[in-house]
C-alpha cells in the first residue's frame, strides 16, 4: 500500500516542480519582451548568479570526481572517520577553510566524503565551518570590520559548531538518516 503512495507523491512533486519552473521562465521571458521591470530585474539576477556559479561548479564537480577515484577510502577514514576523534574535527575545519564556493560546493563534497567513510559529526563540522572559516572570506572580513571582530567570531563559533555536530551525529545515527 505504501509504495505506490510514495510513487504517486513523487509524480505530483515532479509535475509541480516543472510547472513552477515553466511559469517562472515564461514570466521572465515575457517581461523581457514587454519590458516589465520586475521580471527583467529577476532575469538579470538569475543570469548574474548563474554566470558566477558556472565558473565554480563544473570545476568543483570534476574535482570531486577526481577525489572519488584517486583518494583511497582508508585515508578518509583515518582523518575524518570514526577513529579520528577531535582531530577529525580539526581536519574538517582545515579542509573547509581552504575551500572555495561555500555551502553549495561543500554539500556535494560532504556527500563524497560520507560515501568514503567520513563520520557524520566530522561532516557536520565541515559544513558548519565552510560557512565561517573560509580563508579568503575571512581576510576580507577582517580588513573591513577589524581583526578583533573576526577573532571573536572564530573563537565563539568554532567550539559551538563542533559541539553541535557531535549532538547532531547522535540524532543522525539514532534516526538512521543518511547523506545522499
Amino acid at each position, binding site marked *: 500500500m505504501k509504495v505506490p503512495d510514495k510513487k504517486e507523491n513523487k509524480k505530483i512533486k515532479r509535475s509541480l516542480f516543472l510547472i513552477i519552473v515553466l511559469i517562472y521562465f515564461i514570466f521572465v521571458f515575457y517581461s523581457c519582451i514587454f519590458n516589465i521591470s520586475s521580471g527583467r530585474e529577476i532575469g538579470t539576477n538569475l543570469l548574474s548568479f548563474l554566470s558566477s556559479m558556472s565558473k565554480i561548479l563544473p570545476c568543483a*564537480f570534476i574535482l570531486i*570526481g577526481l577525489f572519488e577515484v584517486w583518494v583511497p577510502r582508508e585515508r578518509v577514514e583515518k582523518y575524518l572517520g570514526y577513529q579520528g576523534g577531535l582531530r577529525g574535527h580539526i581536519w574538517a575545519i582545515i579542509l573547509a577553510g581552504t575551500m572555495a564556493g561555500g555551502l553549495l560546493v561543500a554539500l556535494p563534497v560532504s556527500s563524497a566524503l560520507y560515501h568514503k567513510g567520513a563520520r557524520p559529526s566530522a561532516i557536520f563540522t565541515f559544513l558548519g565551518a565552510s560557512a565561517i572559516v573560509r580563508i579568503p572570506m575571512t581576510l576580507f572580513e577582517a580588513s*573591513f*570590520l577589524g581583526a578583533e*571582530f573576526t577573532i571573536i567570531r572564530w573563537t*565563539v563559533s568554532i567550539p559551538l559548531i563542533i559541539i553541535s555536530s557531535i549532538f547532531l551525529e547522535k540524532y543522525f545515527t539514532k534516526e538512521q538518516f543518511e*547523506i545522499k
Partner: protein
Amino acid sequence: MWFIYVTGVLLLLSFFFDSNKSKKALILAYRRFIFIFPSFLIMLILVSIILFLFPQERIISYLNKGSYIVNIMLAALVGSITAVPGFIVFPLAGILKANGIPYTIIAAFTTTLMMVGTITFPVEVTYLGKRIALIRNVISFIIALIVALVVGLYFGEVIL
C-alpha cells in the same frame, strides 16, 4: 579563475596516469551534477526573486529602524534570507559601520548571512534530508546570534 587552472592541471595529470580512472571521475562528476540539478534550479529561482525583493539599499534601511533589540533580530532575519556574495557583504558591513550602526547588529547580519542558508536550503535538503537540514540551519541561526551577543559584549554595546 585560479581554480579553473588547478582543475585543468589535475585533470590532465589524472589522464596521464590512468585514463580509465579519469573517465570514471568525469562520469561520476556528471552524475553528481544531474542529481543536484533540479534543486539547483529551484535555488536559482529563489535567489533571483529574493535579490529582487531585498536589494542592498533596502537592507541598510531595515537595519536603521526600530529599537536596538528589534534591529538585532531584524538584522539576523534579513541576513538569514538574503544572499549577498562575500565581496559585497563586507564592504557593505564597512558602510554600515561608518554609518554608526552598532557592531552587534552588523555581526548579527553578517554571521547569519554566512551561516544560515535559506536560499541553498533546497540543495541541502536533497543531500541531508529535510529534518537534518532544518536542524542544522536552526543551530546555525542560534550560533550566529550568540556570536553577535559576544561581539556586542566585547565592544561594550551589550551590558549584562
